[in-house]
């Protein structure tokens, strides 16, 4: 397990380096001066502009810029955000926890929901419950994130104002609430964005988990378990579920970027001040240091997610532990 972790950590470094390179290449491949627009407003004197360019090394040869860029990424120095007027690291530090809360909640809920649905479906395979819930899940699975978000917003914030429309907490009152009040406030704000992601994600998980369960149900050892005299329930929960979890965990690892992508859109719809909102606004404002940093942090999160998936997968499947 330790070897697995070490290998994955080394792999993660490679991945992040490649992502940093790709982002650098993208920015420098794009037409025009990458940092031009931010400096181009007529109010900035040429001298100042030259000074800024020098400060960010934009006057150097591309190769040197690249080395500096990789070097600063390696040091964790992510630069200065033009649009936020603060260090990129600070902007990330305030956004990241919100994203983690949103994604973490959605992930936990959807794993629980998705697996529960799949177990129910697999247990009643072919029944009305199975087919009905499969159809419903497919519809959720097929919905654009923003559309589902908009519909939930329309229903539960507009027409039936149970939940707040945006943000992480009540902007004004939160600071003046008690501990319980704050908790409730957070949960209320979290509800709709987390629900949106959860519905989409649990639909995906349930679909895969159901297929995995049915696959396992065909496996020889499931027959062995039945031949031992186990009840269908015990076979499903003790043998089939545990085995199929492996593929679901792997799937979650692979789905992590998509989940992050979904979070970007959901955060935008619900004005959730996380990495996604940060990235979209940074991109809209051509704040390249911030854009690059969000891409890199996104990659780090993805890699971390896949490492976690690997570790969990190895916990669920001893074969992977020795691999």
């Amino acid at each position, binding site marked *: 397990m330790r*070897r697995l972790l070490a*290998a994955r950590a*080394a*792999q993660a470094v*490679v991945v992040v380096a490649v992502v940093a390179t790709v982002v650098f290449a993208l920015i420098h491949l794009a037409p025009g001066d990458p940092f031009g627009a931010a400096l181009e407003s007529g109010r900035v004197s040429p001298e100042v502009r030259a000074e800024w360019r020098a400060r960010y090394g934009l006057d150097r040869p591309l190769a040197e810029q690249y080395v500096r860029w990789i070097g600063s990424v390696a040091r964790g120095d992510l630069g200065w955000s033009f649009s936020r007027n603060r260090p990129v690291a600070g902007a990330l530090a305030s956004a990241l926890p919100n994203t983690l809360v949103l994604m973490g909640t959605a992930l936990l809920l959807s794993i629980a929901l998705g697996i529960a649905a799949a177990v129910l479906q697999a247990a009643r395979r072919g029944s009305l419950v199975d087919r009905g819930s499969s159809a419903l899940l497919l519809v959720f699975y097929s919905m654009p994130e923003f559309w589902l978000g908009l519909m939930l917003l329309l229903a539960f914030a507009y027409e039936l104002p149970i939940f707040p429309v945006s943000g992480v907490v009540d902007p004004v009152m939160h600071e003046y609430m008690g501990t319980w009040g704050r908790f409730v406030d957070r949960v209320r704000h979290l509800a709709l964005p987390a629900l949106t992601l959860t519905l989409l994600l649990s639909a995906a998980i349930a679909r895969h988990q159901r297929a995995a369960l049915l696959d396992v149900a065909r496996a020889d050892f499931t027959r062995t378990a039945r031949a031992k005299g186990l009840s269908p329930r015990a076979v499903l929960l003790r043998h089939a579920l545990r085995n199929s979890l492996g593929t679901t965990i792997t799937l979650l690892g692979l789905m992590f970027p998509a989940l992050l992508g979904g979070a970007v859109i959901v955060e935008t719809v619900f004005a959730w001040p996380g990495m996604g909102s940060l990235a979209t606004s940074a991109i809209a404002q051509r704040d390249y240091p911030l854009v690059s940093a969000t891409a890199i942090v996104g990659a780090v999160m993805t890699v971390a997610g896949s490492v976690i998936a690997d570790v969990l997968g190895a916990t669920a499947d001893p074969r992977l532990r020795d691999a």
Partner: protein
Amino acid sequence: MSERAAGVRPLVSVRDLAVHFPVKKGVLGRAKGAVRAVDGVSFDVFPGETLALVGESGCGKTTTGRAVLRLVEATAGTILFDGTDVRALKAEPLRKLRRQMQIVFQDPFSSLNPRMTVGATVREGLVIHELAEGAEADARVRRLLEEVGLRPDQASRYPHELSGGQRQRVGIARALAVEPRFIVCDEPVSALDVSVQAQVVNLLQDLQRDRGLAYLFIAHDLSVVQHVADRVAVMYLGRIVETAPGEALYDEPLMPYTQALLSAVPVPDPDAKRQRIVLSGDVPSPAAPPSGCVFHPRCHHPARDAACARIVPPLEPKGEMSGSGKSAGAPHLVACIKQPPTTVDDATQRAAGATHPPQRYLPVVGAR
């Protein structure tokens, strides 16, 4: 190795063949050790004869067969095909040479392209080597199908529409299409039912007779091997531990491993009372083979002692030149320092910690 029947040159001659697969670890896939799948194997196959390579799963027999055809790259050793150094060939001459040496696989289903009809599969060799095209190729495909016992109209079938035996016949027809001189038969009948197995075994024998083919017949089933082989080589953990003409090997197996192997084969005769040698434990991992004689940890030879763990036994002649027919004059070679006669003299053995002198040990005499 064998200088019998002066003037007959081996068609295939393999010397000190080794195939090691690296065990990869870490991010960059650095090799950390190797699986010694084949570790110093030598043998000859003469025109028109069948050499059987026998052993249990994982002993390296399939890898050996593939390495001879350069379908896996050998780590060391030489492979001569009709005098040509196969390992030294560049891509194009190798491609050309493949016309002369073919392979038939164990699993007739996975070795056929599911998306190609029987006809296309058989025809492919003709196309590749530009042996025939158009109507002529069609005619040759039909002839080949008939020759292996299929109906010509089955050319338009797909593999999944055929039975196991029929598929294996297609595999054989594919190999025959390019008119090879040598075929590696890699467990060609072990996936088949008994009744079908007999059909395919007979077919292979008929083809050998009609076309003068040489076979390297890889198998784990000693009873099938006895029926097809002129000579038999027994492999264990990547090495040949005994080789002899068929009759000699089955009559008087000298390597303790061969003895155990032979004794373990169930005999379809309820009245046969035989002494069975049941080996303890499992085959060790080829990534960490035992020192000395690789078989020594499981050996039942009464003279087994510390020297067995120290001395790598040479594959040396132990009996008189025997054999009849195609294998006439082939020697009986065994890798065991405890089975006299041996070139590893007493002094050497004692120096390696031997406590027992070699002694003739024949617990399974006359399986025949």
